[in-house]
């Protein structure tokens, strides 16, 4: 735990969600072209992902970048690791690496693991839209 509840919430969200995207706006209404591109790549692969809008509170972005050492939004994390921002995600989508990283290479096989729902209590500073 740090002395910042927002940092703890961001770190917790990254730890608790297999695939999580921090973006500007929502997956339905991205507020920036880079976020929109990244959402589109995930949706094209039908990848389940949790989403956090960084816009409601500037501290979310500040703490996120402090954790990830990555300056820009969006940021995609898989299993707790930063995969990349819009450029890297787009490049990995084009090369096919993205589906591998997301663990989607054998979609017709065994059912996906149960989604980790109930991410945050209502009082949490982050609104996580769980799409798992």
């Amino acid at each position: 735990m740090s002395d910042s509840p927002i940092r703890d919430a961001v770190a917790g969200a990254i730890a608790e969600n297999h695939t999580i995207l921090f973006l500007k706006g929502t997956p339905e209404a991205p507020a920036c072209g880079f976020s929109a591109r990244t959402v589109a790549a995930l949706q094209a692969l039908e990848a389940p992902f949790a989403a956090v809008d960084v816009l409601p509170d500037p501290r979310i972005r500040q703490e996120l970048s402090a954790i990830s050492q990555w300056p820009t939004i969006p940021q995609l994390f898989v299993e707790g690791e930063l995969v990349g921002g819009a450029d890297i995600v787009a490049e990995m989508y084009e090369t096919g690496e993205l589906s591998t990283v997301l663990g989607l290479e054998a979609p017709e096989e065994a059912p996906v693991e149960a989604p980790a729902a109930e991410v945050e209590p209502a009082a949490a500073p982050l609104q996580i839209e769980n799409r798992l």
Partner: protein
Amino acid sequence: MPQPDELKARIEASLPGATAEVEDWTGGGDHFRATVAAPQFAGLSRIAQHRLVYGVFGAEIGGPIHALSLTTKIAE
């Protein structure tokens, strides 16, 4: 307002042997697109390659440089 030539010069100065092409993506002086080829990228993940370039500008990314879209290549 940052200029593409200035960004190019700073990348190339910080990463000796690198070549950078930088363009102002929107004409607004704050969204840039860069292709960077650097020998320092060898053996690094894409994340690490991009971090090297972002590191040239520190807190300016997200500030005066609203966006810097990157493509990185390993220079021969």
